[in-house]
């Protein structure tokens, strides 16, 4: 066993793990947050995407021991004070999900991307989601959702700046 300290959605978890524990299994089984799904075994599908220190990673391809000392954000950490993240809201309004299995990972990939590129084109959104597979939506409404969220976040950012 190895001792790790990982902050998940702002809460510190100091615990022992079997070194072979994947970060996604640590999150699901030891932290008890089951929103992050596992869709493949080849780092292909992106269903397990979480943010590590703000950057999107595939939690099936990170060992829990590698997350020691890092901050992890999962889908459960997106909403703040009961308010949905603009990406969650946009996925809801634009029907960016059907079965919902890929959705947590898809949204985390989108959140990480919009931090880096707040004003993306449609083509940039599509390329940014190259590592996340969805079988239900044909991606059409996912792309619409991410573009809409970007606009909302820009408007909110503008207001925040104007207010500050």
């Amino acid at each position, binding site marked *: 066993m190895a001792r790790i300290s990982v902050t998940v959605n702002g809460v510190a978890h100091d615990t022992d793990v079997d*070194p072979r524990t994947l970060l996604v299994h640590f999150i699901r089984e030891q932290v008890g947050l089951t929103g992050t799904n596992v869709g493949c075994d080849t780092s292909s599908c992106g269903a397990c995407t979480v943010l590590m220190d703000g950057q999107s990673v595939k939690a099936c*391809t990170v060992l829990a021991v590698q997350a020691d000392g890092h901050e992890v954000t999962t889908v459960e950490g997106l909403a703040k004070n009961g308010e949905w993240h603009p990406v969650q809201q946009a996925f809801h309004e634009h029907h960016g999900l059907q079965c919902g299995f890929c959705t947590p990972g898809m949204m985390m990939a989108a959140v990480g991307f919009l931090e880096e590129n707040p004003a993306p084109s449609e083509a940039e959104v599509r390329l940014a989601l190259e590592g996340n597979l969805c079988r239900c939506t044909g991606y059409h409404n996912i792309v619409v959702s991410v573009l809409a969220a970007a606009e909302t976040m820009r408007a909110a950012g503008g207001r925040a700046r104007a207010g500050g």
Partner: protein
Amino acid sequence: MIPAPFEYERAADVAAAVTLLQQGGVEARLLAGGHSLLPLMRLRLARPRLLVDIGGLDDLRYVRVEDERVSIGALATHHDLASSAQLRAACALLARTAEQIGDPQVRHRGTIGGSVAHADPASDLPAALLALDAEMIVQGTEGTRSIAAADFFVGPLMSALRDGEILTEVRVPRTGAAGAYVKFQRRAQDWAIVGVAAAIERDGSAITHARIGLCNMGPTPLRAPGVETALVGADGPGAVATAATRVAELKTPPADQNASADYRRHLAEVMIRRAVAAAVA
């Protein structure tokens, strides 16, 4: 799937990692970002007895642009390379290669050291580093040595690293060459069917010096010497196209699920043209 069991050691520094690797012998593997190794371990195609984790050695994570060369720490991620404005200005080829690797999540975790040391002929960075005449700085029990990129990749998934040696830095000389990396794949996240790295120097519009690195065209990343020679003096797309046909001299393109050997050879010719055009654009 879950990897087979292993022992895990976190190295305090490079020297400690070298010692741990040495002690672990052939069943020990180095872990950096883990994006070459962990996928194999999850499918249990790799089952090391010991993992030596150097991922926490932050002093190996840097991109330094110096007058004569660019020095890149082994733990610099693909994303670090792709997002470094300094690197893009000093060595566009490397930044343009890094931004095409895998997908964003892979680029956030995958490291240049891991990618190079894994020596996969289908990896993008090794082809670019060949075209850039990079050198690999490695550290082992007997100290530090430098290996030219041309000598580093010795076979499929085989490098010139000796047991217990760790790649710590990649150095790329600054030549002023214009560079581009063009790859052909069926999905954006896929490995390249063929990738071409072009580093081009020109006098006016005529090419004076060309280095072409090829990804997935043989058992190792390759240079295309015939093409490079033929490109010298080429002025304009017609001459570049003629030079690119020399890639047919390569006898090694693999045939697999994604492409036959002759299609690969053809693609390489097309991608060479496009890479040279993109480099000088």
